């Protein structure tokens, strides 16, 4: 399922282009407005972590819904329902979104660090937190993407539905990345919280997905 979506995406590149260009535009806007010198040394770990996650979040909002929306638009959803069980469909879509977001992270995070001159004291912990935060993002948004694919108004609704569910994870990721950048030793609780949130959201998504898929 995920391989099919990857092949299809590599052919059309609709989600890749949308998500990638939005992320680059966001980064350019942040870099142009603030640059590497306007934020004081003490505020840099927090504010740059916040700006990074805002870029990642809004970029994800532009592209993560495509995985289900395109099935409805191309009228392939019905044949997908016949071809595979809901659990398989969800797993495939989740994996595809995870790969998409991983690609976004690999593109944006190093660029952000470079252009904003973001000094990170604990890069390993920082990378783990970005990965865990992205996992939480995908865990929350895959089901929401399935929901909005059935709605009349899709574009604005995805962010509206996803944000309240994502807020605890976003807050934890921003805080954790701030601590990793500042060199704090206690990042394990933030990592554990992100992983447990991802687990909880994923479990409930898998449970609810058949309802959404058959609606």
């Amino acid at each position, binding site marked *: 399922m995920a391989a099919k979506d990857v092949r299809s995406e590599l052919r059309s590149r609709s989600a890749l282009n949308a998500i990638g260009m939005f992320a680059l535009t966001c980064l350019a806007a942040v870099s142009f407005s603030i640059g590497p010198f306007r934020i004081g040394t003490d505020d840099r770990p927090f504010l740059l972590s916040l700006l990074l996650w805002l870029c990642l979040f809004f970029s994800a909002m532009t592209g993560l819904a495509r995985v289900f929306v395109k099935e409805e638009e191309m009228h392939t959803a019905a044949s997908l329902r016949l071809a595979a069980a809901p659990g398989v469909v969800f797993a495939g879509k989740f994996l595809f979104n995870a790969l998409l977001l991983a690609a976004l992270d690999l593109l944006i995070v190093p660029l952000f660090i470079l252009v904003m001159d973001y000094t990170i004291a604990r890069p390993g912990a920082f990378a783990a937190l970005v990965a865990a935060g992205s996992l939480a993002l995908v865990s929350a948004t895959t089901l*929401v993407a399935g929901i*909005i694919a*059935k*709605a009349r108004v899709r574009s604005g609704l995805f962010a509206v539905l996803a944000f*309240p569910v994502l*807020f*605890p994870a976003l807050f934890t990721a921003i805080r954790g990345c701030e601590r990793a950048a500042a060199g704090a030793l206690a990042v394990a609780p933030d990592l554990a919280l992100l992983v447990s949130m991802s687990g909880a959201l994923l479990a409930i998504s898998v449970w609810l997905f058949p309802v*959404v898929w058959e*609606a």
Partner: protein
Amino acid sequence: MERQSQPRRAASWAAAVGQGALGVWMAGVIAAAFAWAPRAAGFGGESSRIVFFHVPQAMIAFLAFLISTGYGVAYLRTRRLRHDSAAAAVAALGLLFCVLTTVTGSIFARVNWGTYWNWDPRETTIVMVLFIYGAYFALRSGVDDPERRAALASAYGLFAFATVPFLFFILPRLTVSLHPSDTLAPGGPRMDPRTLRVFLASVAGHMALFCWITRLRLRLVDLEEAILEPEGARDAGC
């Protein structure tokens, strides 16, 4: 015919008396909150009196969310649209109480912390619940088919409910909060006896108000269903 309408008339009288009693009760609570309960130490001006309204409203906002989610589960199990209509009706009340909680909390924050809003963890929690309610209604308005709307709204309600433990219990403990500590502490409420009495009376009054309005809304849902059903049967050619 006269005998058949008597139970109904008795029920109407009982309801009217109950509503009157509730009105008197709440009027008494408001009067006692300002005139009888003492001002609590450590708070600016008379702002401590907001506890008689703010806390019960927050309780009901959460309770309504719980009940609405319960109706969502009931819909998913039975596929009766009445349960979905009830979920929406209760959620609308929950949204109202959530707004009231946010407003009363902001007033308290302005008096005590100098600003209406500073993203205190408790403020953040209640506004996220407000966003969840708002998203729920935005989703409902974006789906035309009633059964699809019911399924998606129920699924989203349940999904959003999964974040409640994080919002209510974990998030407020991750950062420092200026919000007064839990009103009903494990060791017993740390309130003046008069304050405690008015507070509990206010909780009871707010709960009764919520139950009454919920009952009215559910009756409206039942009436709408009764009006629509004959039309459905007509369409089916019965």
